[in-house]
């Protein structure tokens, strides 16, 4: 039931740190709202999943840190050690003395192969520490240069070395108005390569998280740390221990396996989106109360209307009525009103989880015609509250959430490619035009599959 996290690049390492931090602080939370026995089970499961024992008694994160430069990694290592509650294994990292230019092809074709053995040895060591290896969780940005290129290569290496393990890629979707001019190329290359090697891609969009910080958390000057902490909270709300089936007597020993089985058995559909409710600043939290029906109603509408957070939801969007065919979505460029799902997973934590009515998520109108809700909808729950939220609900969804975004990015990248802009930056490191074409076709196939739901 242990998950080995591979933190890739600056983005991956910063987010990875926040994730372990959030998990650790939830571990120590005194607001569990459950029995002592339950809390102890939860803590034991959490510890086994994310940390290994060391002689000093301080839990050591099951993680491998990879980056081309030393700065972020050393910051990450020292911040963790200073917390006193957990730390990284200081042997379990890889970096180079100097940076290597911000180039995806360089990362994938040059640095990846060059340092493959060293990096995979570190991963192997972490894997061997686990009695039961549930799988790998990689964290990286999609549009970065060397970091993303290397990340794509490392994921491939993971798949080759561990053919039957579960691999989940956490990818950060760049800001729409990003600064890097070739970010769309990088995104296309990263996405298409990850699609071949991993079992599922869990996406967080910088733009969406930024809005959450601004509107829900009321943060005036939003830093990367704020964005990363929201992401960490969302990830923690899914991957902390839960009971993954009705009547289960112990916390799930296969979190990644359970996730994959419920959401991504079909090899063409691997894109997952994540929504969490409620989200607010710690100050407001003390004065707020929630009801499960309210939370579930909002979450369901967030799914249907493809809203990124619980404010500004379009309540006009409705699932198609039975008997009325869904209007054909001829092109994903047309504003998609109704978000069709393949499969959904709802994670509930906190008070009175047993009494929650999730009938709304079992409505067949929410799902594509070829899968019935009995198979398409799954629930994980625990009475143990998460991170001071008395009630918390998360949704991991395999749906058309990312369809428009993907189409957008692929469209922009294609326009650039059509005029061969900046392509030489890639060909000089071995990524040929034909490789680009392969990537475009892969993603067009994915977009077409999702559009035809």
């Amino acid at each position, binding site marked *: 039931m242990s998950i080995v996290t591979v933190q890739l690049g600056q983005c991956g390492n910063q987010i990875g740190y926040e994730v372990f931090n959030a998990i650790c602080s939830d571990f120590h939370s005194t607001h569990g709202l459950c029995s002592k026995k339950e809390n102890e089970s939860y803590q034991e499961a959490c510890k086994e999943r994310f940390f290994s024992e060391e002689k000093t008694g301080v839990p050591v994160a099951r993680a491998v840190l990879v980056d081309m430069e030393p700065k972020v990694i050393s910051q990450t290592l020292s911040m963790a050690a200073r917390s006193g509650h957990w730390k990284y294994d200081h042997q379990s990292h890889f970096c180079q003395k100097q940076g290597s230019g911000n180039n995806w092809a360089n990362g994938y074709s040059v640095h990846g192969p060059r340092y493959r053995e060293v990096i995979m040895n570190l991963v192997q060591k972490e894997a061997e520490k686990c*009695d*039961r*290896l*549930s799988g790998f969780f990689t964290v990286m940005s999609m549009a970065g240069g060397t970091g993303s290129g290397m990340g794509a290569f490392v994921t*491939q290496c993971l798949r080759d070395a561990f053919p*039957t*393990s*579960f691999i989940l890629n956490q990818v950060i979707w760049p800001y729409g108005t990003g600064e890097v001019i070739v970010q769309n190329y990088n995104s296309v290359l990263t996405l*298409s390569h990850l699609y*071949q090697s991993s079992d599922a891609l869990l996406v967080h969009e910088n733009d969406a998280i930024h809005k959450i910080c601004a509107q829900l958390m009321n943060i005036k000057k939003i830093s990367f740390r704020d964005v990363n902490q929201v992401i960490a909270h969302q990830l923690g709300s899914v991957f902390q221990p839960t009971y993954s089936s009705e009547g289960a007597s112990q916390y799930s020993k*296969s979190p990644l*396996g359970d996730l*994959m*089985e419920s959401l*991504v*058995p*079909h*090899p*063409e559909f691997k894109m997952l989106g994540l929504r969490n409710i409620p989200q607010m600043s710690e100050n407001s939290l003390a004065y707020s109360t929630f009801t499960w029906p309210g939370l579930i109603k909002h979450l369901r509408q967030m799914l249907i209307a493809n809203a990124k957070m619980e404010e500004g939801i379009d309540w006009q969007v409705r699932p198609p009525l039975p008997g009325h065919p869904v209007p054909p979505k001829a092109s994903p460029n047309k504003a998609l009103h109704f978000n069709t799902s393949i499969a959904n997973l709802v994670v509930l934590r906190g008070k009175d989880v047993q009494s929650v009515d999730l009938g709304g998520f079992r409505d067949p109108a929410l799902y594509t*015609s*070829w*899968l019935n809700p009995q*198979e398409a909808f799954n629930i994980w729950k625990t009475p143990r509250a998460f991170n001071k939220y008395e009630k918390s609900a998360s949704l991991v969804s395999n749906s058309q959430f990312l369809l428009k975004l993907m189409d957008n990015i692929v469209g922009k990248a294609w326009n650039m490619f059509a005029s061969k802009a900046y392509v030489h930056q890639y060909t000089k490191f071995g990524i040929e035009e034909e490789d680009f074409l*392969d*990537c475009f*076709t*892969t993603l067009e*196939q994915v977009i077409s599959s999702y559009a035809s739901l």
Partner: protein
Amino acid sequence: FGSTRGMWPGRAGALPAAIGALCRALPPGSRPAPETFRLAKFNRPEAVRAGEAGTDPPDGYCTQIRFVKSVLRYHGYGRPEFYQLPSDGSQGSRELLLAFSWLLNRINLLEQLLTANRVKIGDEASVCTVSRFFCLSSPSHQLDVDVRYLQWLNGRLRFKWRSLHVDRQEQCKLLHKIHSYTSGCHMDQTIGHFSVTETDLIRQPDSYKQLLQLLESETSRLEAFLEWKQLEPVYWHWMVKSRERTLPDEREFCAAVRTITEAVKLKLSDLKYHCAHKKNGMHGSYRLVFKDKRSEPITNVNATEVISKLQMEEATLKRELKRLQEECRHKLDEIAEGLVGVICIPPIKR
């Protein structure tokens, strides 16, 4: 058993003894009362429920009956009256008795149950390097199912298989820990370390009572089995007698038996020929023992040997898969050529 009493003047007690032994040889919990057999012969409904107890299926009575039918079909039982029995268990104990007896003889049911339920002190590993070729017949009717749903189900199956793999790896890891921690402790030098059961006995000495109970139960079942083997002919004679009433013309029957025997002989020789080169496959359950590289080889099976045999099998199967994939690709290319304005896009090369 009024009708048979006259037939067995000298062996009046032999039949109940035989049936009694049969019942006692079955695993506890799946053991019908001997009286059930007598009732079954006269098609008494209570006998059906009790008779079903010999199986070990999932929940639900209807499911139980379906399960029993599917097991018998799998083993080739061909009597239509049995399969036509209603699912509510209201009748058919006689058919059930017949089916049970058939299975008893056909697959050596008792021996199998005794083997499956034997008390294991050591850690077990089952070895199979003989590959089985399953011939699946294609469905005779068109299935009206979206292919994406089938792909979904296939994906779930693969994930479950991978989860099983994770389970097995964990089991191996923990077994290794126990074997290496207890190395040098075992009285039997050829084994050298404790098994999980033995380690548990050391840690919780009181659990020996349970183990003793299991061993005693096994011993009594084995004794019952020996008894049964002595008295077996009595049982079969009784069964045949009960069937005699409904048998067709004896000559027809003999002719049918002859035809069947010949067909079977043919199939058997076919199978033997097919499996000829596989005769030396390792097969069965072995006690798992952790050995130092330097220690003397013993007469049993070596893990390294098994691994290399499996790797050879894997290579053969991979080649076969590749060949089939190529065939598929060619077929697709042919089809694509016939379509106007269509390009076939293969998956991304790695």
